[in-house]
């Protein structure tokens, strides 16, 4: 985290909502594959430009820290979680691109259960 924004302030802004979203949005500028840049303080809104739609990873990060607030989110944690979210999205994309037919069933095991209470089974 740069000196321009202390880590807890960054987490607080993310947790707080709009300002946090804008701050997080700035994270998405110039995303690299490995290391996201340190978030920057949001610019004061000029009121002239329509805000760009936030990318999914920013929305998810914001959702996460707002839903599960903690004062433990520091720079390393936020950047790590952000990288993980991007990885998960990339993995989801790969999974959704894999050719699957309607008949391709999930490989999990489930069988109907009925307790052995001695009641005769009808039908």
């Amino acid at each position, binding site marked *: 985290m740069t000196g321009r924004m202390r880590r807890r302030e960054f987490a607080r802004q993310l947790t707080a909502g709009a300002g946090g979203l804008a701050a997080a949005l700035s994270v998405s500028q110039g995303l690299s594959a490995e290391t996201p840049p340190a978030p920057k303080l949001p610019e004061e809104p000029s009121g002239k430009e329509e805000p760009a739609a936030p990318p999914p990873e920013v929305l*998810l990060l914001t959702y996460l820290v707002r839903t599960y607030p903690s004062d*433990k989110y520091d720079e390393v944690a936020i950047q*790590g979680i952000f990288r993980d*979210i991007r990885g*998960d999205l990339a993995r*989801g994309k790969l*999974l959704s691109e894999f050719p699957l037919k309607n008949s391709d069933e999930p*490989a*999990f*095991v489930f069988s109907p259960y009925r307790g052995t209470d001695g009641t005769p089974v009808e039908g």
Partner: protein
Amino acid sequence: MADDPFAFATIRELGTQLRAKSTSSVALTKYFLDRLEKFGRQYNAVVRITSELALEQASQADLDLSRGKDRGPLHGIPFGVKDLLATKGIPTSWGAPPLKDQLIDEDATVIVRLREAGAVLCAKLSMVELAGGFGYKQADSSLTGPGLNAWDKTCWAGGSSSGPGSAVGAGLVPFAIGSETWGSIMTPAGYNGIAGLRPTYGRVSRHGAMALSWTMDKIGPMCRTADDCGLVLNAIAGPDPLDPTSLPSPWKYAGVKTSPATKDRRFKFATLDVELEKLAPEVRSNYEKSLEVLRQIGTLTPIKLPDLPYGVVAGTIISCEMGAAFGDFMTSGEVWELAAPEDRWGGFSNLLIPARDYINALRIRGKIQREIDAALQDFDAVVTPTLNTEAGPVSQKFVEWSRGFVSNDLSGAANAIGLPGITVPNGFGGRGLPTGLEFTGRVFGENVILAAATAYQHLTEWHKKFPKVN
């Protein structure tokens, strides 16, 4: 056997001494308890030594034997378990500082079965916190500190079954129980120069074991030899009404009476197009020498695995299942007390993965099952180097030395679809630490890979080399 009469003896060797009355279970137990006390913490291998219980079980084992009641090959043999298996009345920490005093009011099925087999529980052994599911990136990621290697205490023991790996490697217990979701038996077994068996998914009941991934967790033995792994698996395998995913058929080790006859057997081995440049030079050289040995007992055929997203599928399944299994642990804030800084936040993104991704991963898993089984149907086992390097320094992050740990897709595939595998030592690396050779079999193929690994060990001496422990 080494100069020391017990420390590095196999289960069969100890059993022979017990039945010849040249020792007793109490004597063996005192001996290994003493080693655990003296050396266990030097390797950060021990969470808790269970002396009182062990001596009680050992006395019973001696009494039973004196009355002619022999419970089989594990009767009277001391052992340790990864501290992710529940033991009634003894805390089960899952390797995590916030859970160090966790009491679970029952014994895991594996604990019950080993007790019924006459084995003597001497210690709960260390592990990477929460079986490594939170994405640890360096060795210092456990309640008990970094697991240290039996051959060099400046190097890592591997994970997540670190304690079982170094405790068996250093002769602190004759065998141990580990668990694997993705690499957690193979890695510490490989780095410590011991045999580690990952059974077919469902072969061993998971009841009472910490769940990281309900559909990928496997429990298996870590021992001196492949043959010992067969003996231990024989005791712990089989259906369990308390684990709905346990396989319905019983399982018996083909070599339970005597080590499997391998003299005349010819095996059909497949080899993979491994990324040789990823291997440390000694690992590559040891692997090539191992293939020469295997040519004495079988054929080697290079194959390619079907082009499927193994790692993506395995990773998605683990992430989603651990996100559910540990959701409360994360959102309650307990997670922030974990040992490794990266583990404290490493699970959060898993709370967000869409159900669709998980279900698609399970759908692709079905395809992987069919295509891998077809690819392996003409073979007894696929042989690969267990790991890309020998163990690296605990002072460094994994990325600095591990070369990605494995050089092929089989590890992800095998864990995603529950294939059995076994690693045995096959030489030493440049710094004198062990390297390993892995045999991966088809589903239900434990007896075949055990026979193949045992045949390899009959032709080599790597499993008879032991570290200096002092």
